[in-house]
């Protein structure tokens, strides 16, 4: 069974060297009206290309755009809809990263393309198979403040978000994987049925790309068996929380889906020991029933300094050699 490596989702947009901080400077300059939108856009494109190039340089088999454009995992997509205003800051799970809380004040309407155009542009420059990452409708809805008259129930908002996002996915081409992230499940497992019906809609609209559900920032061992019945091709799992329990469950119930194992901690600068990783994941690899298996980080790498993020990617590539 072949083993591959993949970037989870995000990648640090700036580094510690001055030349690695041009995006930060460009945003500051735009705020002060010192540069035009087009100049900022040019810098964003360069930094996206750099993020993809770093992943390729590390030797990954499956790359993402690093989510360089994303203001945060929630408001980036939500602010693309009419009917939504972006409000105050709130901590994103247990990170020291904050997102802007969207306020859904009316029925959602699409303002224009959400991400398909951007994906098409980045896809042209990436030389490796490409994964599109988007926050899932249930997580987007659960992290929004919703006006009860527009959407009396969460289900209604999830349905509309699913409709718009799935339609956008249908327009993607030359994309290997679509990763729908539903980290809300680690906090609110009771939302599983909503996630399942939303994924069914994605599954019908995704075109030739394979569909992957990602959860992170929590232990999903209690949901793992239920995940097997979802209409998805792959599952991305975070092994940095309750690793022992999740490992036991995954070993006990080999999956027929493609597994993306979040084996390196995307939140810790501590570099994992290659030998230890090898011995921990050897059994899962040997017993895996799916067609293929990916090694990745526990979550997006934006929570790490760029240098260490790159080292974690390189470690995945070395681990692949060990396990293969």
């Amino acid at each position: 069974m072949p083993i591959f490596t993949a970037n989870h989702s995000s990648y640090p947009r700036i580094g510690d060297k001055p030349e690695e901080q041009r995006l930060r400077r460009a945003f500051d300059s735009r705020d002060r009206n010192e540069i035009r939108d087009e100049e900022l856009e040019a810098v964003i494109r360069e930094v996206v290309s750099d993020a993809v190039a770093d992943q390729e340089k590390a030797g990954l088999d499956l790359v993402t755009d690093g989510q360089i454009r994303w203001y945060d995992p929630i408001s980036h997509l939500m602010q693309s809809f009419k009917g939504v205003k972006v409000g105050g800051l709130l901590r994103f799970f247990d990170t020291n990263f904050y997102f802007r809380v969207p306020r859904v004040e009316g029925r959602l309407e699409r303002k224009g393309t959400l991400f398909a155009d951007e994906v098409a542009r980045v896809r042209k420059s990436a030389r490796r198979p490409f994964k599109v990452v988007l926050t899932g409708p249930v997580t987007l809805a659960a992290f929004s403040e919703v006006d009860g008259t527009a959407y009396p129930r969460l289900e209604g908002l999830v349905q509309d978000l699913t409709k718009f996002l799935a339609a956008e996915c249908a327009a993607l081409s030359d994309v290997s994987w679509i990763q729908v992230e539903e980290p809300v499940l680690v906090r609110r497992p009771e939302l599983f049925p909503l996630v399942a019906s939303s994924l069914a809609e994605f599954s019908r609209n995704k075109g030739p790309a394979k569909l992957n559900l990602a959860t992170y920032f929590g232990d999903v061992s209690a949901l793992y068996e239920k995940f097997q019945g979802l209409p998805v091709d792959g599952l991305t799992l975070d092994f940095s929380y309750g690793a022992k329990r999740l490992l036991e469950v995954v070993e006990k119930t080999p999956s027929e889906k493609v597994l993306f194992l979040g084996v390196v901690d995307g939140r810790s600068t501590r570099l994992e020991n290659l030998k230890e990783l090898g011995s921990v994941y050897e059994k899962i690899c040997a017993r895996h029933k799916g067609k293929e298996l990916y090694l990745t980080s526990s979550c997006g790498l934006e929570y790490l300094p760029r240098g260490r993020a790159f080292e974690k990617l390189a470690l995945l590539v070395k681990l692949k050699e060990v396990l293969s």
Partner: protein
Amino acid sequence: MNRDKLKKLGIDLPLFPTTSVGSFPKPDELKKARADFRKRAITAAQFRQKEEEATRFWVKKQEELDIDILVDGEMYRGDMVAYFAETMEGFEQGGLVRSYGNRYYHKPVIVRPVKWKGPITVDWWQFAQRQTVRPMKGMLTGPYTIMDWCFNEYYPDRRATALALAKEIRKEVEALIGAGAKIIQIDEPALSVRPEEMAVAREAVEVVTKGLPAYFVTHVCYGAFEFIYPEMLSLPFDNFDLEMSNSDLDLLRLFGKNPFTKDLSAGVVDVHSHRVEDLVTVRRRIEGIARVVSPERIWIDPDCGLKTRTVEEAVSKLQVVSLAAAEARQKWQKKAV
């Protein structure tokens, strides 16, 4: 309000006392001096002089605005965790990571046992207190937040890290009390990140505060309070300083279900918006809060540190805080009569 404790400490506060969360924007001259100092274009003494000037400016400004409990404005600090990491043993400066939007910080890395080498904030607290007769808050970052906002490459787990830090931070609290500080704010904005770790946070904070003669405030912000309220009230703090305007007073719904039993420093202006709230808006917020929490328990301040605003915006926001609090004071005093 825990007035008995404050009175024992020699502090008598009016109804709706005003304060600030901690940081103020650095004036342009100080920013330039910081850059010059990094380039070694000015000496440490020259740089210190600029920091003192800026601190004097903010102390005077708070007095002019009739703020009751002052802060030194943290002119000498960069980031609230990195500052302590830089002055204690056991840390290395980490790389840049994003906190939100286009804002980044150097996230420190714990690589050895942490150790308090000597007073960290005492000198600045003394300097600021000398400029005024009004009470000056001592300002620290708490052990749970330092643990959560650093990478840890040394301790086996989060609890061990928090407790090791707590033992060292207590020494700083003792030093502040020794220097004369009566009100000490221990910022724990990370408190809400892992509700299941409330016991760890409590254990760490108890190590820091137990048996020490001061009125303790904590600042917590931008978290999912629904997961830690009302349990957080069991932490050994007298006063919880909470951002309330950012979330449109959402916290009041929680306080409606379970009464807020400690003193409350209520954030009534948004520190992440350039727009300065008008008096009507802030008045409405104070009135809304006072309908749910006893006015006797309420202090008034901005949501969080004002360091990301311009000097003018910060002054204007403090001004509206002060005016609205004065108005509320008058109104409630009349009611009492």
